[in-house]
């Protein structure tokens, strides 16, 4: 195309684009809401329906944007910098700490009060992620607990009991490998996803290796306890060879697939495996069992990293409507509908709901128990931006991979991790 027609074409195209990119704004209240795209699509659908019903009720139009666990912080980072946080933001376990520290979240203590009236007392372990300086900066929504999945048929075959400790998992894995049932039965991926850093925290805390005190201030990583913990999980990759190196490169779905393809016996995951097996009428469903994550010498201190909360950023110009929306979503009928349609993924923090009959079955009991025992990120202190960064910088799982992949001594890996944590706490001091 030569000169003139092309120029005209370009101008027309630009005009068309300009039209497409600048939608006309109608008069009624428009809200934006960001929510997590969970592993259970039917649950998402229920939530979306709830949100739309609620928006009609309060006379607003809601635009829902979704994110996955992987790209959540890409989106939020961009929004924080460009001051375009949504009106209602579903945040993870560390989101409220980070945003509240920046002064970008509204005080929602009154909202929490309203919800408590309808849904019952809020579990104390939920406060660490959302309550700072005595005020609530997000409304706790639900938790996706990490539970231990195992193949009960294989465990039985080697004559073992379902494992309660990390050592037991190692032993059973060795037996299964020896019996030729599976090559690499132990699917604990010390990777950059929640399947990695959640068990990592649970592991360290169960060995008493927390690096902060009750106020959240850094006190140093207890080296001997951390060493104990490391020495329990690294042999699977190194000496026993009951875990395949590839597991370290798994994305969030890797362990699900390996488990359902019958390649591994043990893996930490949210309840989604049960959902996936049920919905595909999977042959292994009858052999799939769950248990609480293992305990250590210091007890069972399980991390609650998949916690979803509703925040109302101060950026939004429609604070009143945003709060009304959250209030409606968290109302008894709507939340109960969501909970019971979530295939046991959405474990609530409010007393009436957690005591609901929905959880009164073998699997449900374990799942609910996990949440009750859960410790917030930053335990034994509250969730702080520093604690948040320790996870998002993958300090703990890097510690594991330094030993497993780079063949560094556990002592040195712990040393490095401690140094990194110290540096983070210096940069983001706890107030």
């Amino acid at each position, binding site marked *: 195309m030569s000169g003139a027609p092309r120029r005209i074409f370009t101008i027309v195209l630009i005009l068309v684009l300009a039209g497409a990119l600048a939608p006309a704004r109608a008069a009624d209240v428009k809200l934006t809401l960001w929510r997590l795209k969970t592993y259970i699509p039917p649950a998402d659908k229920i939530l979306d329906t709830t949100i739309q019903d609620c928006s009609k009720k309060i006379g607003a139009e809601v635009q829902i944007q979704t994110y996955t666990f992987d790209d959540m912080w890409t989106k939020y980072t961009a929004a924080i910098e460009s001051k375009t946080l949504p009106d209602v933001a579903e945040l993870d376990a560390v989101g409220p700490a980070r*945003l509240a520290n920046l002064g970008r979240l509204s005080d929602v203590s009154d909202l929490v009060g309203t919800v408590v009236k309808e849904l019952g007392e809020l579990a104390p372990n939920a406060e660490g992620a959302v309550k700072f300086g005595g005020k609530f900066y997000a409304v706790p929504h639900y938790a996706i607990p990490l539970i231990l999945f195992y193949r009960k048929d294989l465990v039985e075959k080697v004559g073992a009991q379902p494992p309660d400790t990390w050592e037991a998992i190692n032993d059973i894995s060795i037996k299964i490998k020896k019996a030729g049932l599976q090559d690499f039965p132990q699917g604990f991926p010390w990777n950059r996803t929640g399947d990695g850093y959640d068990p990592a925290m649970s592991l360290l805390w169960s060995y008493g290796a927390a690096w902060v005190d009750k106020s959240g201030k850094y006190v140093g990583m207890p080296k001997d306890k951390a060493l104990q913990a490391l020495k329990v999980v690294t042999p699977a990759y190194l000496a026993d060879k009951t875990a*395949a*190196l590839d597991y370290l490169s798994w994305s969030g779905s890797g362990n699900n697939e390996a488990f359902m*393809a019958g390649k591994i016996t043990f893996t930490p995951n949210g309840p989604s495996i049960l959902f996936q097996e049920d919905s595909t009428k999977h042959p292994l469903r009858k052999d799939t069992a769950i248990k609480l994550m293992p305990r250590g010498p210091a007890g069972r201190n399980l991390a609650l990293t998949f916690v979803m909360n509703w925040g109302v950023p101060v950026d939004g110009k429609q604070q009143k409507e945003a709060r009304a929306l959250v209030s409606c979503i968290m109302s008894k009928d709507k939340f109960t509908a969501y909970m019971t349609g979530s295939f046991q993924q959405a474990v609530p923090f409010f007393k009436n709901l957690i005591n609901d009959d929905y959880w009164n079955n073998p699997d449900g009991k374990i799942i609910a128990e996990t949440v009750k025992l859960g410790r917030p990120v930053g335990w034994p202190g509250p969730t702080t931006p520093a604690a948040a960064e320790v996870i998002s*910088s993958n300090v703990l799982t890097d510690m594991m991979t330094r030993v497993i992949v780079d063949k560094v001594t556990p002592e040195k890996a712990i040393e490095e991790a401690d140094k990194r944590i110290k540096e983070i706490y210096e940069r983001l001091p706890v107030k």
Partner: protein
Amino acid sequence: MQRPARGSADELILAPPVAAAPRARGLAWHRVNRVQERLLGYALIAPVALLIVVLIAYPFLNAIWLSLTEKIVGYPAHFVGFKNYAALWESARFRIVAWNSVVYTVGSIGAKVVIGLAMAAALQKAVRGNQLLRGFLLLPWVIPTVVIALTWRWLLDLYRGLVNVGLHDLGVISAGIHWLGNPDLAMLSVIMANVWRGFPFFGVSFLAAMQTVPQDLYDAASVDGASAWQQFWRISLPSIKGVVAIVTLLSTIWTLNDFNIVYIMTRGGPGAATHIFATYSYELGIQSQRWGMAMAASMYSLPVIAFLIVFVVRYLHPEEPSS
């Protein structure tokens, strides 16, 4: 004045203007014409200039500034001098990242040059079906990189990937190969994906270049008894060395700061075995929320690129000073 050599850096940057014979018209016309020409010149490069200044130079300077600050997402930036650079320099992890970037780049580029040359040599003879072949072989370059990365990840899956399953069925291996778990194999895997994606660009460019070499050179060599190999080494290769240099340079710059393939295939894992500048910078910037540090990490790749550019320019014109 002589035209610059084909494919040379001079030709790249600018051919010296060929003086036009003065027209028969008056001097005044000539002068006005000159001014007109100048104005038109500026007008036509204005858009490019604007683009460069606003969207390349400014952000780049911004990047340098950011790298000298401690900028955490949400907080204002404050100046810290070279602290980020020093911290990275001392970081064992970053040294691994830098080394990986070199390995990834050298490995990929080396393979692409070799395959590109082989492809050009093989397709050089005008044979029926060549066009179709060339078109087909161009496909990897055309397909979205995201698709390529995901496909290779799927191909190399430990239990169900075609590679392991196929090798197993052929009896070559008994257990799955840890393509993405073994640190060395993981690097090999991302290099393989990069090479698969990039070799067509090399092959097609080299082929195009070779096809402008006059046939009589080859005929004369045949008459003198030179084999096809010798012809390739002594005639084809030297003739296209300019294009080889340019293509290699471009691809090196792109590969050194490649993001997609590594991010999607391994996220830099296992551990930091495949972490390269771009993926590490992304992790620092988005996950750790440290933009200052992220920029400092990226900046470390610049001296290499600058050196390469100078090197290539010198290589193509060893006698002349670099422009």
